């Protein structure tokens, strides 16, 4: 036993970059909501970018370490404490047995990460350690323990790693979806020009957009979907599929967010404004 969850907050889980091996069995990809923050956290520690991390939600997290190692907290805006002393985010932090790390809450972002030197260790299912119920448990509970390797060597901090991510942008870049061409001119114009906002209906499976558009499209014959696919329901709702999305769906797929825009959207809170920038066909 090397790390103990003292306060899990809501929706905290172990995540890496997810599993693609089992999509043909209907198993979602899962993985971290914001790959940018996790890539950064792992590079701070000199880990491969997809090493397993603890993902936690706005309510924060409290953990106790039981082996010496290096950790880092990757969060856009959080107050982090090690044994009640404030510490910085995005820097390697030495921890010793019995140290307690506490993140009270995230101030305006949604997901944040705790990474450890060489990644957390756990059983891999279909090539990934990511939590996904029913393959694994859904979330951490109080008292859960998690393994990591002891690390006490000299660590040369990488001066190149800097937090330069722009989370203020309201622009979501998107490919035209498989059914985009079926939309009327009016709908295409609205998608390109209107301002949208995020509803309170958000979770690891999907983020719903508040505004509705008049939908004249029929449902499609069930086809593949991916995280970032924007579905258009018969009621005119826009549903952005996120990391735990099903692998197939029957609603028209009108847009497909770029990887970077999925990361950006994942951190938007309720009522955040956004606009779509549709990628022109390239060659």
């Amino acid at each position, binding site marked *: 036993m090397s790390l103990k969850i003292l306060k899990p907050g809501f929706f905290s889980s172990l995540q890496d970059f997810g599993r*693609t091996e089992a*999509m043909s069995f209907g198993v979602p990809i899962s993985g971290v909501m914001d790959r940018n923050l996790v890539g950064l956290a792992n590079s701070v520690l000199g880990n491969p970018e997809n090493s397993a991390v603890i993902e936690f939600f706005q309510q924060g997290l409290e953990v106790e370490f039981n082996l010496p190692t290096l950790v880092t907290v990757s969060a856009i805006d959080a107050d982090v404490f090690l044994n009640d002393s404030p510490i910085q985010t995005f820097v390697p932090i030495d921890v010793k047995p019995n140290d307690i790390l506490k993140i009270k809450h995230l101030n305006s972002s949604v997901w944040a990460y705790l990474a450890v030197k060489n990644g957390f260790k756990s059983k891999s299912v279909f090539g990934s350690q990511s939590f996904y119920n029913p393959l694994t448990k859904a979330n951490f509970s109080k008292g859960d323990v998690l393994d990591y390797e002891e690390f006490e060597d000299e660590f040369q901090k990488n001066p190149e790693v800097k937090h330069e991510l722009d989370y203020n942008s309201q622009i979501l870049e998107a490919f035209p979806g498989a059914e985009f061409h079926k939309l009327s001119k009016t709908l295409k114009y609205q998608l390109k020009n209107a301002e949208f906002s995020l509803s309170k209906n958000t979770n690891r499976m999907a983020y719903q957009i508040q505004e509705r558009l008049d939908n004249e499209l029929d449902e499609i*014959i*069930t086809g*593949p979907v991916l995280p970032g696919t924007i579905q258009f329901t018969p009621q005119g709702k826009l549903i952005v599929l996120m990391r735990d999305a099903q692998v*197939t769906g029957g609603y028209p797929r009108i847009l*497909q967010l770029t*990887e970077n825009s999925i990361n950006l959207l994942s951190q938007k809170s309720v009522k955040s404004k956004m606009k779509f920038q549709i990628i022109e066909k390239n060659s």
Partner: protein
Amino acid sequence: MLNTATFIQYNEHSILIQFDTEINQKLLNNLLSFKNVLLEKEPKQILQIINTYNSLLIIYRFTINKFYDKKNEILKLLEAAKLKDEISNSVLEIPVCYDEEFGIDLQEISSLKSLETSEIIKLHSEPKYLVYFIGFLPGFPYLGGLNSKLFSRRKSQPRSNINAGAVGIGGEQTGIYPISSPGGWQIIGQTPIPLFDFSKSESKTLLNSGQFLKFMPISKSEFQHIENNLQDYELKSIKL
């Protein structure tokens, strides 16, 4: 058939190929053939390919820089591909108990379609069904072959929980819920056989794309017996 294919750049590293032709066993066979050819030819480039009724989604390990070049590359591979028989030549028998304890919507379908419940069970357990693909939930099979007399609209109020193993009808489809889940299908029975053993890390789903299955009616006591002796139960597979 390739002349009915539309290629779409789905995202930075995926290409969707959609075939605008009738959905049937032949199309599925070709999709699975194409999938295997591509996986064989480009194992280092391709991370995963998933198929549905009429689509292949190819997920690459790398970003696609020149979509049209990639599209032409794929087309050449597919044009040269030798189509093989990918559809199974046997039928897996799935035991299903249609007792009213499990078939909680049998009465509703019976009055909707003016069919005796015995007739519903007969019509449902007669045909062999083709597994087109697995989606919606881990292990959930999309089946083709439901008798049109049994097409039934989904429930107006979806249930918040349907048992794992429940066999249902939704619109023109029939299927098995692999795990307990909310759902709007009409439930007509239940199988004691787990479709997906989540406890084993390298487990596979019981059913795969390109396989046939048949529902074999069993009594309540047989259901209980199989459920209590799962490790001894061997699914029967009948050669076509």
